[in-house]
């Protein structure tokens, strides 16, 4: 298999290209996505390749963007819509939460929404509280949405392809802090499966579950913990809805300890959901309390010194797990 080094941002463009080449009904719209190639340069070259009919620059009108995507999806297209920063979902949440998520159910299945909404999620770039949020839990709380957040270039392509081909609306959270990260990516078409978590590392003492930018940190923490005599497995959740509870429950049952690592603020995150599922469904396999390692329940500060203290670091993950395993 021929492999190439690709950045996460290049993977986004490749994923979109792959799907637009395959299906002429796939169209793409958003602010500055065409002529400018995206503010994160993740969609460079698409306008040139697919033309202004399929790659459309929009005004600053997030509601109109998502409404257009919704109406197009229910009439035969398969739109990809970009909401530049995930924080901006707050100006168009009605379309996501009240319209796109609910209309298939409300109409008893008369309409469906094969669309993908991709967005730059997460912090670490010193953009401050209104441009750094991890809002995947906003989406997870709404029935009717699929929710995906890849941690590496290959997953970007495979999960994105799965999202575009999926007949339901998929919220695709790209992590802004990962755009410049690199990974080996195979040549040719890549298609993955929604709802499948990936076990990145096995270890008999504890299970760490992480998402997106927290995945590399969880892996680094597990390596450090191994140095200190604690063997921790790491699971990349990848998809919050559908959620691969089987893989997670199996791994946690085996180790008896669960640690979630979340970038989102503490309350009501996916970690709480996971801990609750585990506490209810494999209570008797737990050897100790499940722990959530999260950003504290505060807005994200802008200064680099402060932001680094807020978001879970490798060091914090190691410290918390080590302390918990010892007590």
């Amino acid at each position, binding site marked *: 298999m021929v492999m190439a080094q690709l950045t996460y941002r290049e993977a986004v463009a490749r994923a979109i290209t792959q799907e637009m080449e395959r299906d002429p009904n796939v169209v793409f719209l958003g602010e500055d996505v065409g002529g400018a190639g995206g503010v994160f340069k993740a969609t460079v070259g698409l306008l040139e390749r697919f033309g202004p009919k399929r790659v459309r620059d929009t005004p600053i009108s997030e509601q109109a963007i998502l*409404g*257009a*995507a919704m109406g197009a999806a229910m009439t035969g297209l398969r739109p990809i819509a970009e909401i530049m920063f995930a924080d901006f979902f707050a100006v168009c949440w009605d*379309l996501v939460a009240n319209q796109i998520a609910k209309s298939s159910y*409300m*109409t008893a299945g008369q309409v469906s929404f094969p669309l993908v909404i991709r967005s730059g999620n997460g912090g670490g770039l010193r953009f401050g509280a209104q441009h750094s949020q991890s809002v995947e839990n906003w989406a997870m709380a709404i029935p009717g949405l699929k929710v995906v957040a890849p941690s590496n270039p290959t997953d970007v392509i495979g999960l994105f392809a799965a999202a575009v081909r999926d007949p339901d609306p998929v919220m695709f959270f790209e992590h802004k802090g990962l755009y410049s990260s690199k990974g080996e990516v195979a040549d040719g078409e890549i298609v993955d499966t929604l709802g499948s978590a990936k076990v990145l590392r096995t270890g008999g003492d504890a299970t760490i579950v992480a998402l997106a930018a927290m995945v590399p940190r969880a892996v680094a923490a597990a390596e450090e913990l191994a140095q200190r005599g604690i063997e921790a497995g790491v699971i990349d959740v990848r998809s919050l809805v559908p959620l691969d509870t089987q893989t997670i429950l199996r791994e946690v049952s085996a180790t008896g300890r669960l640690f979630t690592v979340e970038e989102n603020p503490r309350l009501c995150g996916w970690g709480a959901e996971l801990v609750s599922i585990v506490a209810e469904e494999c209570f008797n396999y737990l050897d100790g309390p499940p722990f959530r390692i999260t950003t504290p329940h505060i807005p994200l500060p802008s200064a680099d010194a402060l932001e680094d203290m807020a978001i879970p670091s490798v060091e914090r993950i190691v410290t918390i797990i080590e302390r918990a395993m010892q007590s």
Partner: protein
Amino acid sequence: MTSTTDDPATAGPPGIDPGTLHRPDGTVDIPTQLALYGQMVRMRKFETRAYDLFMENLVKGTSHLSLGQEAIAAAFGEAMEEQDYTFATYRGHAHTLARGTSMTGVMGELLGRSCGVLSGKGGSMHLTDVSHGVMGSYAIVGAHLTIALGAAWSAQYRGEPRVAVAFFGDGTTNIGAFHESLNLAAVWKLPVVFVCENNMYMEYTPIRAVTAVANPAADRASAYGLESILVDGNDADAMYLTARESLDRARSGGGPSLIEARTYRSSGHSRADPGKYRPDAEVAAWKAYDPIVLYRTRLVTRGVSEADLDAIEETADGDVDTATVNAKASPPPGAEDLMRNVWSDGGWSWRN
């Protein structure tokens, strides 16, 4: 447009300078007029029955009737082509019926029965019938204007001669989604028609008390480079011809239209609202300007026989009775309906 001097519609709607009204070119032939009359009568009788059933506590949640506003729905129902798309609001019974949806399906939905067009899952505010081009009724003010953009875009993208029509109220012109929709539609020259049914009230508050301009839609058309169109929404012919104009414009690549149709709802905003916040004189003036009464007079003046018109009324009565019987006889939906259709494969599960 056909209006003789003894036509009561010549005066125009109460309180409106007739000189400001859009007077579309063309005439409406008798078969179309009979169809328009039939549509309006069906709507009127359906809504009246829905009100009765609400008072009997058979319509359980809420319902928003369009009594008095029938000319608008009827006109677009007749003017639209089969392949066109309707986007309605919670006040969408008439717009749904106008496209040919079964009355039993609509009535059943209001009653929360399994014969409902949505199996009782959506209710009165979310009527949808894709098989007749009714792409949904939306209960969050303004949202569907953005969604209509997408249906229009999709038609434009494929080069199909379809038009999306979005109906909404005067109050809706003050929400952000209105603005975003109008601008994008104009910039992309989308085949979409925005129809503001100005019934002078946003729920209970008079629209003039909360709006910076006198005509909430027409006075804003220029902000999107569009023509200002204020039309008599109680004159079915004027509405029909205006509808045709805008649909033709959209279909021929001329882009969007924004139509403000002046009308009045003769009942309350929703449910059992008696509408007491409205001045008696205003209510009376508009009652005297009822679109169905006006139209019947006009048709009779044009030589249509009273008997033919009565027959139309009777057919409608029969349809409404049948729908009522059917809906009442239909069982409520069951547990299998509850957990269905979150996803397009019919399922609901969020986990493995």
